[in-house]
């Protein structure tokens, strides 16, 4: 090991450029894949001759690339590609909607806790800590088992188990921003507390909030897949990327393609959002270099 390799601060210009290039290339690839998934799941189903819920018992377990079924058919003879597109539509919608709800709750809790501090802040943040004590999957399944499964429930429950990280990020930001000159000026100006919080402080914390939102979508898609795989999320006949894997284990020996396509789609979607979030973090806020 040489000394040059250790002094990481002094990168050669070429290395620094490679670093930026590499980082942004992955984020860019993520963004492109997300666009492909969004457009594919939005318009793809209209281009296919098959309906995602159309059952054709004579053509069960057709392997991929056999005839008209590009990705084959499942145990009921439904077209896997059609289900994949509809499933991606459901999973992406849940991911994004759950993110929006989680962000709204997280930003509100974080802003109030960070702005008021003291007892209010302590109580709100201890609540955040307490919810974080529950392993996400346990909490999610317990809540899902107590409620009627469906699109709305799944979305709300995922948001309910994901807002705490946002609250932590926003609380830390607001707590430090409220001491800054522009915030003090707003107070001197006679602005209301709500206005200072949501018009001055939160917009100034937009960089970490955007990063958190992107990573939150990744998390939500992953959680949907867990929940639906275990049978407590989106219910058949509707497809989601998770519930397509629900029966995959039984047919693993005879029809492995049933497991491959949805799993690859989930991994692709989640990885893309994670890389995009990582890239945004580097681009927007270099100081926030948490792993």
């Amino acid at each position, binding site marked *: 090991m040489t000394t040059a390799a250790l*002094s990481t601060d002094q990168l050669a210009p070429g290395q620094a450029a490679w670093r930026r290039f590499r980082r942004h290339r992955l984020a860019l690839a993520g963004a492109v894949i997300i666009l492909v998934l969004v457009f594919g799941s939005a318009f793809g189903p209209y281009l296919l001759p098959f309906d995602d819920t159309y059952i054709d018992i004579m053509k069960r377990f057709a392997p991929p690339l056999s005839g008209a079924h590009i990705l084959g058919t499942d145990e009921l003879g439904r077209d896997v590609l059609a289900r994949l597109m509809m499933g991606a539509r459901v999973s992406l919608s849940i991911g994004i909607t759950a993110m929006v709800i989680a962000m709204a709750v997280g930003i509100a809790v974080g802003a109030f806790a960070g702005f008021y501090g003291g007892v209010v802040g302590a109580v709100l943040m201890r609540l955040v800590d307490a919810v974080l004590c529950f392993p996400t999957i346990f909490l999610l399944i317990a809540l899902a088992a*107590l409620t009627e499964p469906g699109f709305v429930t799944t979305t709300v429950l995922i948001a309910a188990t994901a807002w705490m990280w946002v609250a932590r990020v926003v609380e830390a930001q607001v707590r430090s921003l409220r001491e800054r000159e522009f915030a003090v000026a707003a107070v001197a100006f006679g602005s209301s507390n709500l206005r200072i919080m949501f018009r001055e402080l939160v917009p100034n914390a937009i960089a970490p909030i955007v990063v958190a939102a992107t990573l939150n979508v990744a998390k939500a898609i992953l959680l949907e897949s867990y929940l639906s795989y275990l049978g407590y999320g989106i219910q058949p006949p509707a497809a989601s990327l998770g519930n397509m894997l629900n029966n995959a284990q039984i047919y693993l020996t005879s029809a492995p393609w049933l497991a491959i396509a949805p799993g690859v789609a989930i991994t692709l979607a*989640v990885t893309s959002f994670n890389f995009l979030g990582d890239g945004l973090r580097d681009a927007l806020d270099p100081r926030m270099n948490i792993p």
Partner: protein
Amino acid sequence: MARYVANRLAQAIMLLVIVSAIGFAILHLAPGGPLSQFAASAQMTQEDLDRVTKQLGLDRPLPIQYLDWFGRMLKGDWGRSYRDGEAVLSVISSHLGATLELMATATIIAVLLGCWIGVLGALRRYSLFDTLATVGAMIALSIPTFWFGLVTIYVFSVKLGWLPSGDRETVGDGSVLDLLHHLIAPALVLALVETAMWGRFMRSSMLEVINQDYIRTARAKGMPEWRILTVHALRNALLPMITVAGLQLPTLLGGALVAETVFTWPGMGRLFLDSIGYRDYPVVMGILMFSATMVLIGSLLADILYAVVDPRIRVG
């Protein structure tokens, strides 16, 4: 030090109270409340329900019920399983061993592998190895654990026939070799995410340490590079990993639940899902509270241990 521990302990107790309040709220969220199981039964009349409600004290004000419930939790009386009437705590503890075995094995793999990858990545920052490790870690964090388990079963059990596709032991065998044979796949699947996280944390911790002044001083004194790395850099970079161990616990428990489901591993996670299937709410609630308490105690221990090895923490 004593003051720090006392402070941290008080915080943990406060958290436990909030955690239990959340648990209590969830219990009462169940359709029909804690009695939903009986309410669903056709043989129960409304009078029966009212009588049971009174017997169990469910007609009292909620705060009183909560205090009563919390007090019984502290005494170890976690209720009885609807399925076989066994005490919840003993049901949980009979499944705990399998889960701990899985979690411990996965953690050992993840710590060794993750720290090695992280240190190497930090020392050769932006090398091909580091790039591949960073990208690989991100993908590992994005793969659904259950799907990775399915792929593992397909490749190593269905196609190659090297590993069993599930269960903890072959019926009638149960030798150490047989147990290990069954442990490999679920432990590796569970270790994947953990390794990625340990690698990422270790890399950033190591990067921070090797840029410190005392490393430069050591180098200026002419100390051999291996000694700088092992004695000065690695030792200090490993300290924050204690906190990581505490932070990992929720993910580890959640991952164990999923790995246990895929590999039909007879642990707490599977018990949890089975109990949900049977609407066995006392056991479900018990496991939920048990796992949250485990996380709470884990992070408390991690914080205290960190303060023991790094005196700077106690002041803050």
